[in-house]
């Protein structure tokens, strides 16, 4: 066998393995989307065989129309997208400035503060959920109704506690540490302020970490369940994951569940597609590629 034959064979095997892995990841999505068009009985009958992944049988949009009748889906999606978008944006701004301060600026207690922030990574959210709830239920807020007490049943109660988090600050701090120190020094010599360095030197080089932090934050926020369950009693502020529970009645309508899941997956996929482009563009535009 020649070297070329070996190379071809390896390539085929490699692609076969990759296709197999890709199919494994795609199957649940395909199952979800295909099932969303099938009536419950057919969905359950097909679930044990290959027909589960094929658009065969009695297909219709009935599950979608029934899902919309059962729950205010558009409202839930809007709430989740709104809360997630605001949180991600503010988080990127706040955590990147914090990471910048920890990496480039000299100040007393910097290491201790970073250590404390990193230590919060080992505390699960469930452990602080109740104290946080008690706090959120007592805090003041100035809004359209003037000064009110308690943040429950609002968007800001779902946003503010999650703007800053140890992981995102750590991601930025770690990434900034690997940026060429000469750039920062040169900017300082040129008389640039810290804010100018952050905005005009560091952030344009931070596309990859921004994309990574945005993806992680987006997923965490879009999949929020426990916190909104605790702090939101009004339907008008409920996010998609709490909304999913509308479909789990005594007799579960699986087709509607699949339709709902397909609908709420759309923003996630759109965000990924958008960020994939931004991610590649950010790498191409920075001076850090090899």
């Amino acid at each position, binding site marked *: 066998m020649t070297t070329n034959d070996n190379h071809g064979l390896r390539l085929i095997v490699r692609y076969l393995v990759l296709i197999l892995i890709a199919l494994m990841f795609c199957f649940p999505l395909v199952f979800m989307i295909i099932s969303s068009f099938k009536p*419950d*009985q057919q969905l*359950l*009958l097909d*679930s*044990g065989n290959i027909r589960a992944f094929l658009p065969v049988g009695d297909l219709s949009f009935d599950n979608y129309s029934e899902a919309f*009748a*059962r*729950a205010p889906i558009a409202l839930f999606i809007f709430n989740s997208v709104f809360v997630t978008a605001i949180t991600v944006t503010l988080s990127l701004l706040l955590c990147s400035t914090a990471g910048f301060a920890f990496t480039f600026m000299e100040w007393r207690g910097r290491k201790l503060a970073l250590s404390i922030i990193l230590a919060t990574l080992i505390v699960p959210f469930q452990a602080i959920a*109740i104290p946080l*709830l*008690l706090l*959120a*239920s007592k805090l003041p807020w100035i809004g359209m109704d003037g000064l009110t007490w*308690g943040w*429950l049943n609002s968007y800001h109660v779902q946003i503010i506690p999650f703007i800053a988090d140890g992981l995102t600050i750590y991601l930025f701090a770690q990434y900034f540490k690997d940026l060429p120190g000469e750039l920062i020094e040169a900017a300082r010599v040129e008389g640039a302020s810290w804010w100018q360095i952050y905005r005009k030197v560091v952030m344009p080089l931070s596309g990859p970490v921004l994309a990574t932090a945005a993806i992680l934050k987006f997923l965490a926020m879009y999949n929020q369940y426990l916190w909104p*369950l*605790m*702090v939101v*009693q*009004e*339907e008008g502020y409920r996010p998609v994951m*709490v*909304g999913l*529970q*509308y*479909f*789990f*009645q*005594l*007799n*579960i309508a*699986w087709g509607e569940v699949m339709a709902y899941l397909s609908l709420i997956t759309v923003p996630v996929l759109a965000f990924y597609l958008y960020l994939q482009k931004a991610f590649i563009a950010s790498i191409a535009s920075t001076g850090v590629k090899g």
Partner: protein
Amino acid sequence: MTNAKWVAGAFVAATAWGSVAAAQETLTMWYHGAGNEGEAKVLNQIITDFNGSQADWKVELQSFPQAAYNDSVVAGALAGNLPDILDVDGPVMPNWAWAGYMQPLTIDESKIANFLPGPKGMWDGKLYSIGLWDAAVSLVTRQSILDELKLRTPTLAEPWTLEEFNGAMEAAKASGKFEYALDLGTAWTGEWYPYAFSPLLQSFGGDLVDRSTYKTAEGALNGEAAMAFGNWWQSLFTNGYAQATQDGADRDSGFGAGKYAFSWNGNWAALGALKAFDDTVFLPAPNFGAGAKIGAASWQFGVSAKSAHPDGASKFIEFALQDKYLADFANTTGLIPATATAAAMTENYKEGGPLAVYYSMTEANALVRPVTPGYVVQAKVFEKALADIANGADVAATLDAATDEINADIEKNGGYGH
């Protein structure tokens, strides 16, 4: 009439309406039925009727999905944000009352004299909650299966004995026509386990806790009767009659697809079973020695402890107890109306109705789950013990461990006020 008079008339009418509306004090209400269009429709009708029937109170509803409801109430209680009226699952009520989330109802008790016992939420000698319906479990099968396997049709007066029940399972297995003889619904985790299976333990003579004191599970959950139950429970799986772990799809459609000869299921699934086979029959629970038992108590209405308007809240609940609303709920949800007079007003539960047998079962065999705040823990301990035994764990060791865990919880909580 001139334009000026029209305007003046409209102004007077609007002012009058406004003053009536302003006079109505708002009562907030939380309900577990979000996503259930039928229940929402009936409940909204009751609220509309109540709000229009008097000038003092106006109920505003906030619905939650059932799976998220209990956690929302507990979080609301912690944050001091409970509504005036809430609904509560019957067996959970003592815990919420003990924890200070609820206050006793002040309704005219003569209005619930004819109610089934299950929907009456009593704790510490007081009525805390009242349900408009109850639920029941039966052994679902087909008359043709009973005939083919040459099995006696059990009745409420003469239910199957342990030997007859085991014989039916063996006959179904030996026929080779079914994947499993019995669909127990092990796919449904959570409250289904204590609701559906603790009556079987009680029918053996055991229980989750000693009901004479509610201070220990010793002897109730690990005594001779409980051991007999545990061994029998395990035999259902070792003999291949039932699945220790079950696919949710099999639970939903297995009986209709002919996979099982028998299905231990609730009345909410009964109409589906009737649709699947025209000879579907609903058999009463077997008597394993201490009488035939089925679970009782479903969702009920109560008043939160923080309500500033318990009188208004109680008035609304009393208003909702009318037979016509009980019948509306039963017609919509398939659940059992809380009174015989309401049952007579429904298609399914009136005499000769396809589900009337469930009303009789509830009357004859219903036993509420242990009326104690500790039930919420006992239910989870029991569920885990049953799942472990079904998957082959040692029966005596498992029941002893479950007993110890329940006892430790009771002790930790100072006896839960018993």
